[in-house]
C-alpha cells in the first residue's frame, strides 16, 4: 500500500521535474489566477498573451536551435528590424519581393555568422555581438533613424498582416504555433537537425562520431536568421511601419524564453518546444503585471525580474527533488 503511494508521488514528481517548463507555466498561471483570475483566464486575454508572445517566441525558436547546437546568435535583435525594413521597402514593388528579400538578407547574415564561427573559428558571442552592432548601424543608415513607412505598401502584405481567424487568433499567433510544430518535427525526424544535439553536447565527440560539425552549425545559424526574417515580416505586416530600435534587448528575452523552457545554454540539452512555453511564460509575466494594481508600473522590471527568479528557482528545486526521487524509485 505504502509502496504504491510512494511510487505514484514519485512518478508525478518525475513527470513534473522532467518538464521543468511545465513547472514554470504552472507557477505563472497560479500567480495570474491569484492576482486577477476572472480577467486572466478569459479567452481574449489568453489570445492576447499568445500574440504578445509571438515576436519573442519566434526569435526564441531560432535562437534555441543555435543554443542546442552549442553556439548562439545575439544579432537577431537588430537583424529582425532590418528584415522588417527590407520587407516594407520591397512591398512598394511586389508582395513576392516583400517576402523573399528579407529572407534573402536574413539568410546572408546567417551565413556570414556561420562562416565566421565555423571557418573563422571565432566565438559565437563575440561574432554576433559585433554583427548586432553593425546591423544597428546599417538600420540607422538606411532610415536615418526615422520610422519607415512605405508610400505604396502592397495590399496583399497588409491583408496578410491583418488576417485573423474568428477575430481572436491572428496571423502572428498562427505562424507562431505552426512554425514551432514544424521545427519540432524537423528536429525530431531529420538527421541533419538531430545532429545539433550531438554537436552541442560535445563538438569533439560529434566529430569522432562522424557528424559534420560545421555543416550542422551553419544550418543552425542560417535557420536562426531566417526566423529573425520571418519575425521581421510579421511585425511590419501588421503595423505597416518599420522601426530601427524595435528589437533592442530582444535577444536577451529570447534567450530567457529558451532557458525557462528548459534548454540548457551549455548546449545539447532541451527541446525546441520548451522555448515556445518559455515565451508564453514571459508574456504571461508581463500580462500579470498589467493586471495588478498594487505595484506602481515603475517597478515593472523589478517584479518581472523577481518572477523570473521565482520560476527558475522552482525549476531548480524540482530538479533537486527529481534527483531525490530517482534514488527512491530505484531503491524500491
Amino acid at each position: 500500500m505504502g509502496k504504491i503511494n510512494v511510487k505514484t508521488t514519485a512518478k508525478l514528481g518525475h513527470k513534473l521535474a522532467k518538464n521543468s517548463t511545465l513547472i514554470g507555466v504552472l507557477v505563472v498561471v497560479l500567480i495570474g489566477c491569484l492576482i486577477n483570475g476572472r480577467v486572466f483566464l478569459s479567452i481574449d486575454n489568453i489570445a492576447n498573451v499568445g500574440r504578445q508572445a509571438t515576436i519573442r517566441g519566434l526569435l526564441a525558436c531560432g535562437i534555441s536551435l543555435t543554443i542546442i547546437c552549442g553556439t548562439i546568435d545575439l544579432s537577431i535583435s537588430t537583424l529582425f528590424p532590418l528584415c522588417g525594413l527590407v520587407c516594407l521597402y520591397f512591398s512598394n514593388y511586389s508582395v513576392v519581393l516583400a517576402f523573399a528579400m528579407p529572407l534573402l538578407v536574413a539568410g546572408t547574415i546567417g551565413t556570414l555568422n556561420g562562416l565566421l564561427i565555423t571557418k573563422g573559428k571565432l566565438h559565437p558571442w563575440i561574432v554576433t555581438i559585433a554583427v548586432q552592432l553593425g546591423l544597428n548601424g546599417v538600420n540607422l543608415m538606411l532610415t536615418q533613424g526615422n520610422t519607415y513607412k512605405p508610400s505604396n505598401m502592397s495590399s496583399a502584405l497588409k491583408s496578410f498582416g491583418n488576417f485573423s481567424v474568428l477575430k481572436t487568433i491572428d496571423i502572428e499567433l498562427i505562424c507562431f504555433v505552426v512554425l514551432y510544430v514544424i521545427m519540432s518535427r524537423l528536429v525530431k525526424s531529420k538527421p541533419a537537425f538531430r545532429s545539433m544535439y550531438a554537436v552541442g553536447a560535445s563538438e569533439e565527440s560529434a566529430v569522432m562520431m562522424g557528424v559534420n560539425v560545421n555543416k550542422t552549425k551553419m544550418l543552425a545559424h542560417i535557420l536562426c536568421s531566417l526566423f529573425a526574417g520571418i519575425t521581421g515580416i510579421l511585425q511590419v505586416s501588421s503595423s505597416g511601419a518599420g522601426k530601427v530600435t524595435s528589437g533592442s534587448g530582444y535577444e536577451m528575452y529570447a534567450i530567457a524564453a529558451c532557458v525557462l523552457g528548459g534548454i540548457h545554454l551549455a548546449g545539447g540539452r532541451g527541446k525546441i518546444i520548451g522555448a515556445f512555453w518559455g515565451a508564453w511564460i514571459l508574456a504571461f509575466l508581463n500580462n500579470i503585471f498589467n493586471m495588478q494594481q498594487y505595484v506602481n508600473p515603475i517597478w515593472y522590471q523589478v517584479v518581472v525580474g523577481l518572477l523570473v527568479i521565482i520560476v527558475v528557482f522552482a525549476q531548480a528545486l524540482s530538479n533537486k527533488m527529481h534527483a531525490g526521487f530517482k534514488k527512491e524509485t530505484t531503491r524500491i
Partner: protein
Amino acid sequence: MHADGYLLEMDHIKKSFPGVKALDDVQLKVKPGEIHALMGENGAGKSTLIKILTGVYKASAGVIKIEGKEVNINNVQQAQQAGISAVFQELNMIPYLSVAENIFLGTYPINSGKNIMWKKMEKEAQALLDDIGLDIEAGAQLGTLGTATQQMVSIARAVSRNCKILVLDEPTSSLDSNEVQQLFKIMRRLKNKNIGIIFISHRLNEVYEICENVTVLRDGKYIGSWRISEIGNEELVTSMVGRKVENEKTVRGKTTFDEDYLLEVKDLACFPKVKKVTFGVHKGEILGLTGLLGSGRSETAQLIFGCNLLQNGKIVYKGKEIQKQTPRKAISMGMAFCTENRREEGIIPDMSIRDNIVLSSLKRLSKKGVVRNKERDEVVKRYIDRLKIKTPSEEKRIRLLSGGNQQKVILARWLATEPDLIILDEPTRGIDVGAKQEIEKLVREFVKQGISIIYISSEISELVRNCDRVVVLSDGCATGELVGDEISEDNILAMIAAGSASKGGENVAEKN
C-alpha cells in the same frame, strides 16, 4: 584478392604536434580476419596512429592502403565510408542522448521521406544490445549508465557498422573479466566474418589470449611486428619498454596489524549503490577492495571522501568520527582520492601539467595565498621525474597528453598532498606495463613510509600481488574479507561469486 593479401597497410606514417614527434615513420599491416595487437608504452603514439586511420587527425606524411588501393582519409566520414569503424580510448559519446541514438548517430536509419525511423532504430539497437549481452534498455539516457556500460555501448556502436576494419583503442580498460570475455566473443565472431581488428591494450594476458600478430611502437617509432606465438612475454615487454624489466613478483607486506584502525567505516549507505559497507584500514597497509562491476566500490570511495552525502553509517578517521565529510575536509585531514573516471573527475583539461599536479597541494605550497613558485616547481619536477611522466614541458596542457600519462599526472597530484591515506580507484587503468610496475612499486614504498592505501581494482591479479588484505563487495554490501596467504585469485573469485549468488537470491525474495 591482391598480392600481399593485406586488408590494411599503413606505411611511413609521420605526425608531429608542437614540440613532439608523435609518429615517425610508422607502419601497420593487418590481414582480413586477423586480430592485430598494437602495443607500446604510454605516449608511444598508438592512439595517434588510430586517429590518423580514422580521419580525426591528418598525417604529415605516409600512405594508407585498404585492400591494396591507396585511400585518402581527410575526415571521419571518409574513414567511415572506407569501412573503418572505431572505439576510441576516451569515451566519445553524447551523455544526454539515448543509447540507441548514440549507437546510430551519424547513420540514422531513414525512410523514403528522409525521416529518422525511431521505432526501427530502437528495435535494432535493442537487438544489438541483447546480442552482445548488455542488459540495458535502448531508450535509456546514456549519461545515467556507468562507465563500463557506456564503454560497452560504444563497442556496440562500432560493431553495428558494416565495417571492414574495426579499431578498438583500449576497450577493456574499464571492463571486468566477464565483460572482457563477452567482448572477446564478439571479436571472434567478427574475425570469422573476415573483418580485420586492431586491438590496443596494456594487458598482456588479453593480447596473448585473443591476438595473432602484434606490432610494437616505442617513442613514436616502429619497433617491429611478430606473430604472437613467436614472441615471449619478456621479449615483448622489453621491445616495448626498450630495456629489461624484472619479473613481477608478489610482495606481501605484513599479515599482522595493530588493533587500531586509521580509517573505519561502519554500515555505510547511500542508496541505491551502497547499502551496508563495513571495514577498517590499518596504518601502513594496502587494503584491496574488489567485486563485480557496479558492486559499489567506487561509490564507497566517493562516500569516504565526501563526494556524496552519507545517508547512513559513520566514518571514523584517526579516532574521530567525521561529520559532513567534504573533499576539502578530507584533503586537509590527509586523505587522497584518485578517481576512476579520469576525464570527468580527474583532469582539468586546459590547465598545464604543472597546475594539474599542484592543484590539491596549493594550500601547502603557498604562503598567505601567494604561491611559492620555486617550491611548487620543485614539487612538480620531482613528481614528473618520479612517475616518469612523458612530456616536453610541464607547461603542456594535460589534455594533449596520452591517456596513461594523464593518469600519472593525477596520481602525482595526490601524492603531492603527502597524504596518510590514499584511495586509489582503478589506478592502473590504461597504464602501460612498465609504468604499472612503477606505480605498484611506488604504492609499496608509500606503505613502507606508513601511508595506508585503499586499492580498488577490477584486475584481481593486481590485488593478489599487492594487497595485505582484500575486502569483497557485492551489490553494495561488504560480504567477505581475505587476509595474507588466503589472498589468491581463486579465493577472491569464489567469494565474489558467492556474494553475488546470495544477493541474487535476496533480490528474488524481495521482488516476491
